[in-house]
């Protein structure tokens, strides 16, 4: 486990952009309270693939972005479990199609809510609010 500290929104974006290169799985679970930088981290990952329009998926639950010109991935799938109580409803939405597709990079916010149902190869990233307003502690 490596611990990172970021001191601005921009640094959290940059960290996401940097860490994506080291991912050895296509499933990333993000765990952290409201405002801890989960969406910002995913935006950073998106930046690495040239996706600029990532916004909060809270309302529609799952947003899918096309990844162009990349050997490893075709899609970035951004899921938000904020409103979920269980994994069953994610199956209705079609999560399995993406978890089983190695060409889809799946990033799941509030992954702790469905941890028991996620595959073993899921990599978890924990985000915490720091003491200072813009500080975030990110454990990978």
């Amino acid at each position: 486990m490596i611990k990172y500290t970021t001191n601005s929104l921009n640094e959290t974006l940059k960290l996401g952009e940097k860490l994506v290169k080291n991912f050895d799985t296509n499933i990333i679970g993000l765990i952290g309270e409201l405002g801890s930088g989960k969406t910002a981290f995913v935006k950073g990952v998106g930046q690495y693939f040239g996706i600029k329009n990532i916004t909060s998926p809270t309302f529609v639950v799952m947003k899918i972005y096309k990844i162009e010109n990349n050997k490893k991935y075709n899609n970035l799938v951004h899921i938000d479990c904020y409103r979920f109580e269980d994994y069953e409803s994610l199956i209705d939405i079609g999560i399995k199609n993406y978890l089983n597709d190695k060409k889809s990079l799946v990033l799941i916010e509030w992954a702790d809510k469905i941890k028991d149902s996620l595959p073993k190869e899921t990599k978890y990233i924990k985000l915490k609010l720091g003491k200072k307003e813009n500080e975030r502690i990110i454990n990978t």
Partner: protein
Amino acid sequence: MRILGIESSCDESAIALLEIKNNKVKILKNIISSQVNIHKKYGGIVPEIAARHHVENFFPILKEAKINFKKIDNIAVTYGPGLITSLMIGVELAKTLAYVYQKPLIPINHIEAHIYSNWLSHPELFNKKTFPALAVVISGGHTNIFLMKNYGQYQLIGQTVDDAVGEAYDKVAKILNLGYPGGPIISKRANNYKGEDDLNFPRPMMYAKDFNMSFSGLKTAVLYKARAEKNWNKKKIDKYCFAFQNAVVDVLTHKIIKAAQEYKVKNILLGGGVSANNELRVALKTKADKLGIKTHFPKLKHTGDNAAMIAMAGYFNKKRAKKNNFSLMADANLEL
């Protein structure tokens, strides 16, 4: 022309019947069955529960509506964006009714329908002179500014880069333990407050050159101030609501007015749940009036999700009406 509208993109199951003759709109039926009380305890909408309730709700409201299908011309239905499991119920219902009664089906974009909610109560908008107009959709899932050059012509000129404005209301309400949905309660508590706004919440991206907005940073600023706060009392919560709402209204009015000036529009049209916010309406109207730009807001009952606006959008999309459209599929990420 009589159009039946069907809406199920989120937690409202709704049916409406409109009659439109010589640019006059008559709302013959407008029935909404909301699940907001069911979802309150979860602090938001739970998709699986929402879909199940749509199935249960549509049959009673269809019965209540007593629609004479012989007398309708078209069926309009929301096919996106929204929760896929919720959208599917409305789309399948509409496809079935259209098939059984052999009526043409019109697929409707939910965001576009929020814009057309203004036509339900402003007959003066039935006019090419309405354009160019600025159409602003602000709700739990959307924060979009469109330049509308004519009916059906939209150019997205600004949007949120993170959270939707209604989502920020919901999440701030959660931070302050005020329950769900956040909009009405925060607005009410803000009105209770008499005093200065000394919390100085940020106005993210307000002075950026484009028309994009950000509400996530504002949410986080509220979170940090609230976390450091001791001795909560009723007045302090009111103050937080007041200061948060001030920041939201400042950013929205600033961006909307700037866009209206840049694109030299004649009208500003608001739509979506957050367009019910009175402070926003007053602030926007005051600024726009000074510039000679007209502002239009839907009636309060047409700001949230409803099917009357779907039927209204159906009227302006009647060219897309198709019989036996079995291939129509819900699209959760549909864009305008």
